């Protein structure tokens, strides 16, 4: 069997993560790495529905919060291992994705975007009024002082996020490169024509919202353990939601590696700015960069490179 460069890359990245965990002493590296990777998973998740399928939406970060609160609720109920919480949060968010998909996919364009935004607000209100998970006062999570195999808890969280990211990237790549990817792209380009060419549009759209939900939930479930204190405001944070959209837009939405590039770039810049200048400047940077790309390079960094390559080949078509 031919082993593709992609899988070699996956193994190398994972190995590099473990080496870093073994060598580095600076705990901030893992902290920053976790935040970047969390953004990466969310960007990849958003792109499955917003990029591949063409259903741009503002609500998918709400699924992140639902994932986080599913973990909190289960943690209150019984102290389950983190991995189990992640799996259950993924399933819950996947089911909610399927359900909301069924309700909202009749809408298109700006109407769909508004419906998903409204949905996120509804969920935020529900959680604010749910005392079991702390309501508006929020909930604390006590993290263990020592963890097996790793030097610290944050180191373990970093490796966990790295593994989850690689899984999500692999799934997203499979989706975009398989027959299903072409079906999703045909829905993005022209849904009526796609249906008449035999594409089961409703089924593919539901798969798309479900996968988006699962990935968002998976990204959100470890979040309370990472920050140790969570309230509705921090879980439904505007910056988290905007990042999930900005990263794919900046990287390029049409291909699987677009959101990966966007997330690594934007996420890293944000961390550097937070440390060297100020955390408030973060939000400004996201906004400016996003406006710049939407206005000047709507197909993102990947699109810029494709145009450049085409020009070099000549023809200019």
């Amino acid at each position, binding site marked *: 069997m031919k082993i593709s460069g992609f899988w070699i890359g996956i193994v190398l990245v994972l190995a590099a993560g473990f080496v870093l965990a073994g060598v580095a002493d600076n705990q901030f590296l893992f902290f920053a790495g976790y935040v970047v990777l969390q953004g990466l998973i969310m960007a990849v998740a958003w792109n499955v529905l917003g990029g591949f399928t063409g259903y741009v939406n503002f609500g998918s970060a709400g699924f992140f919060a639902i994932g986080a609160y599913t973990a909190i609720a289960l943690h209150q109920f019984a102290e389950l291992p983190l991995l189990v919480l992640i799996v259950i949060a993924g399933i819950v968010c996947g089911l909610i994705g399927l359900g909301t998909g069924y309700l909202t996919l009749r809408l298109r364009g700006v109407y769909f975007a508004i419906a998903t935004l409204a949905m996120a607000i509804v969920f935020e209100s529900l959680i604010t009024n749910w005392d079991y998970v702390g309501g508006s006062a929020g909930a604390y999570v006590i993290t263990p002082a020592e963890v097996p195999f790793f030097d610290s808890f944050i180191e373990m969280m970093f490796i966990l996020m790295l593994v989850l990211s690689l899984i999500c990237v692999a799934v997203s790549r499979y989706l975009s490169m398989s*027959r299903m990817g*072409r*079906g999703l*792209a*045909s829905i*993005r*380009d*022209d849904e*009526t*024509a*796609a*249906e*008449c*060419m*035999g*594409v*089961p*549009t409703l089924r593919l759209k539901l798969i798309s919202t479900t996968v988006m939900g699962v990935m968002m939930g998976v990204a959100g479930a470890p979040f309370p353990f990472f920050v140790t204190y969570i309230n509705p405001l921090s879980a439904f944070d505007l910056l988290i939601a905007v990042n999930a959209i900005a990263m794919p837009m900046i990287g390029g939405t*049409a291909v699987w590696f677009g959101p990966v590039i966007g997330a690594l770039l934007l996420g890293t810049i944000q961390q550097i700015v937070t440390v060297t200048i100020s955390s408030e400047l973060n939000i400004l940077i996201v906004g400016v960069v996003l406006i710049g790309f939407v206005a000047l390079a709507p197909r993102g960094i990947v699109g810029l490179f494709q145009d450049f390559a085409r020009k070099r080949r000549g023809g200019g*078509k």
Partner: protein
Amino acid sequence: MDADGRLLDVHGLTKRFGGFVALNNVSMHLNPRERLGLIGPNGSGKTTMINCISGALFNEEGSVVFRGEEITGLPAFKRAELGISRSFQIPRPFRTMSILENMLVPMEYAAWGRVDHATHEDRAMEILALVGFQDRAQENSGNLTQVDLRKLELARALAAQPDVLVSDESMAGLSSAEVDEVLEILFKLNERGVAVIMIEHIMRAVMRYCERIYVLDAGQLIAEGTPEEIQGNPDVERAYLGE
């Protein structure tokens, strides 16, 4: 095929939009490999008819039977899988894809269960050669001219490996030479065994191409016959020109 050897049988079809009756108790049929014309003034129900056949709309009364199988309630993608393919009046290419990728969508969905998957690209290229696109397969479909878009529309419909192709005004707005070009393509694909339902306002094309013609007026079927019979029919003249 049903008992009468018909490929497609529409029986007593009625379609209403609110209080407006777009089609009233219309029956028509299509024989295998036939070149059928469907004509009528604007608003007579032609496009509604093919929407009911292709599954874009559902009829309230009557039935649509394809190869002896009732398909009245089936969604459009299922009908495409069975072998009913259509082109659109206003071309609807998949704009972010190349010409070849446009062809692969119906191959990988509508024709997935009927065609050997390893031969997809070869078959797509063969159909592209039919419309003269053999050297342009990698071109982006978003930048094509009107006549090229019409050709792609037909080629893509053909890539679904249909038994019936519904061509909805494939020639509207084309020059005389371009009309001949598209007609040539439609003749070629009929020779490959595909039955064609042609909806068209360009009478020269309809009369030259079709073996049999139905005429709709205000949702009613007013005539059926060969091109010669239709041309001499006083009802048809009245529908087009008034009293």
